[in-house]
């Protein structure tokens, strides 16, 4: 039993770490195709990370928060991966793991925001405050969408919600909640029209403007892994069908579905300009309303 848990933990972390740059590479290729460009090779994100990891570690300032933020960001995302089902129940799952998941999911953006505030640059400061406003409006969408599943399944365990979905089939409230989650995914992945906190042309990368070399690599890797883990969470909780019970096949299916979701995210990214922070926030207030509608459905039992 413990051996299986450890093996699954290692596998989930490995998927999040090693597969995410490949998915990003595919998304970049797609972007290039829409741009009429040839684009870099699919493995480019691996090369970028390797190159950054080999560079000198330059810091604009000192301080515990600033020093620890990159490791905290990547570490929290890897921890998150262990609470997310990937072809099998989440390895660290327990009866109330949904609550832990929501908290752990928040750690990476908060680490980035804090690094922004700590890095003594006006652009990073503006980016950090935008990140904070985005977290405030994005996070309820995520939480409410997951709570819909919890209400329906009568459990606060992510594995339990997946099992309930598999046995009872699609329901209107879960479809609406899934739609809200999918709309939120675009912002969780930091893609247009919601890359407001980074906004290269306005604030030069926002919270990351003063990050370089290995520190930037860790932040980048954390963001890539995070978007993949969120894609897994979405496909496993909201569209877990078909489920064969044969683990390698289920894992492969989940990977394929996650890829499809990220391709969709990349397509939305490439055909949209960036919104302003107030416009982004009012958008998420509307999406939040959708998720509350789903919650209402769930409470009355549909």
């Amino acid at each position: 039993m413990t051996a299986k848990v450890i093996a699954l933990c290692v596998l989930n972390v490995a998927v999040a770490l090693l597969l995410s740059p490949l998915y990003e590479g595919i998304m970049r290729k797609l972007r290039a195709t829409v741009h009429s460009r040839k684009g870099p090779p699919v493995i480019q994100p691996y090369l970028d990370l390797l190159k950054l990891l080999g560079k000198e570690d330059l810091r604009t300032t000192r301080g515990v928060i600033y020093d620890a933020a990159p490791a905290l960001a990547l570490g929290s995302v890897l921890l998150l991966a262990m609470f997310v089902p990937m072809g099998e129940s989440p390895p660290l799952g327990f009866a109330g793991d949904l609550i832990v998941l929501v908290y752990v999911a928040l750690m990476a953006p908060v680490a980035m925001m804090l690094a922004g505030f700590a890095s003594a640059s006006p652009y990073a400061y503006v980016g950090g405050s935008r990140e904070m406003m985005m977290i405030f409006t994005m996070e309820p969408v995520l939480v409410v969408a997951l709570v819909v599943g919890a209400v329906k399944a009568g459990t606060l365990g992510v594995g339990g919600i997946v099992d309930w979905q598999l046995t009872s089939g699609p329901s209107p409230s879960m479809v609406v909640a899934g739609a809200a989650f999918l709309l939120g995914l675009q912002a969780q992945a930091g893609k247009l029209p919601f890359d407001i906190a980074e906004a290269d042309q306005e604030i030069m990368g926002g919270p990351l403007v003063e990050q370089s070399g290995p520190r930037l690599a860790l932040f980048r890797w954390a963001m890539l892994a995070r978007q993949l883990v969120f894609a897994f969470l979405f496909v496993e909780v909201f569209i877990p069908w078909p489920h064969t019970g044969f683990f390698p096949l289920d894992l492969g299916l989940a990977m394929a579905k996650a890829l499809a979701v990220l391709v969709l995210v990349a397509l939305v990214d490439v055909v949209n300009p960036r919104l302003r922070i107030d416009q982004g926030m009012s958008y998420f207030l509307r999406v939040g309303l959708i998720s509350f509608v789903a919650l209402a459905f769930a409470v009355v039992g549909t």
Partner: protein
Amino acid sequence: MAIANSTAARVRELFGERLGSRVQTSVDPRANTLRIQIDKASVREGTEILANEMNARFMVTVGTDRRPLTGGYEVTHVFSVDADQLYVLLVCSLAPGDEQICSITPIVPGASWAERELFDAVGVKSEGHPDPRRLMLADDWPEGVYPLRRDFPYNHRPPPTEGVRPRLLDPPPGASVVPLGPFFPVLEEPAYFRLFVEGETIVGCEYRGFYAHRGIEKLGDSALTYNEIPYVAERICGICGFIHSTCYCQAVENAAEIEVPPRARYIRSLMLELERIHSHLLWLGIAGHILGFDTVLMQTWRMREPVMWLCEEISGNRKTYGMNTIGGVRRDFPEPLSSKLLDTLVGVEKEAVAVRDAIVGDTTLHARTKDVGILTNEWARKMCVVGPSARGSGIPIDARIDHPYAAYNEIPARIAVQQTGDNWARVLVRVEELVESIRLVREVVSAMPGGPICAEIEDEIPPDRIGISVVEAPRGEAIHVVITGGDNRPYRWRVRAPSYANLQAAPAMVTKDSIADVPITVGSLDPCFSCTERFELVDVRSNRIVVYSQEELAKMAHRPARPGGTP
């Protein structure tokens, strides 16, 4: 010209009535130009008559050091009565030793930079100017050294002043400063917008530019000859260089009364419109990029390539064609190319219309550009804004109509005007102009007359004449003023690029918007920083002047970018 004549008569009459004997002379050297010489005390009154009663638009101030000729300085304010195709020059000669003149900025706010530059360059102070700080000289440039005076050699390097600080404004109480620059992150160019913000809302803004002056005007009156200047003028701008070489050549042609052959005029129009097409496509891409919409950037720049290739086939270069010379052009338009040109334009037009329709229908773009960066009609008039920025605010001015040049008398342009004055209006004006320019190229090619491409110039260019010329650049009206000199070069060559006028309006446009709107608002002016940076003489950072010989430049150009690569 009859309209211009009657307007000129009216201006003269008004001046006679109000100022009486204080008008020293008033002559019209050419049918479209009226030169009024007044005494120093009447400059403001004269400006009031022109700006308020004649509805004339301020264009540029030319300060000339005439001490070697008359003992004093001369200041010329150039105005345009747009509807009547008339230039009015308000000329004021200062007595020897006098270095002061009345500021006209309180009447015409758009003259602010021109008067600050007048002090920086020539050392004539404008009394009563509301903001008499230094404009374009480096912060460590010594006080009392004026580079455009005749006794200042073009290659002189004054020792820098130690311990000076930038002369910047203080933010209003309660506001903090968000710097966008001096390396402007949006366009990756040297420009400095200091935003005074409360939260994300902007309550004020200061623009500081001119970080990379090149001393081109000074070179024009001291180191270059008439026929060398077009090639330097073309290098004022990296996008619309042909505008500047055309404008300079026309100014000299005006001054010397040289008749340009019709074919040369048509070729100029052709190249000007091709330049407008690729410049507007470039701008559209950059505007998309500013909003994070890189698909627009990639697609418009791909569409732009065939136009660049056409330019290369006509002139030998994608950019900086080197085709203009005084009296005409140096390269003929190869007739066999016209069918290929028209074919290419069919493709460009199809894609341009597709892009226009896609942009007009994109609601997220509306959200980012409508009611953002508003330039009101009143403020645009006060700041003397030109080009698409003026037309987006309901001011129907266009140099191609107001002061026709090249072939625009025969083939007039239809201009697009929008009333709202926001970023969206400026987008619409430019996409309409893009399609219109394609039409103009077609008309020009099909109506192109035969004959010589350059006038025979036998006589020397007569000294001490003034020539004014405007060209509608993609960004607005560029103005060149040439006062001819005796030693085969201008006595004074004054350049005013369109961005110089438009950037002055930028601070008011971003106020009350949020920080996120600044890039697109500034971008919507299509500012060309290189156009405004023509003046300074010394690289202050490295503090040295490097002169490369032709051989060294050729060697650098042919050095492979990486070892082992092909040159």
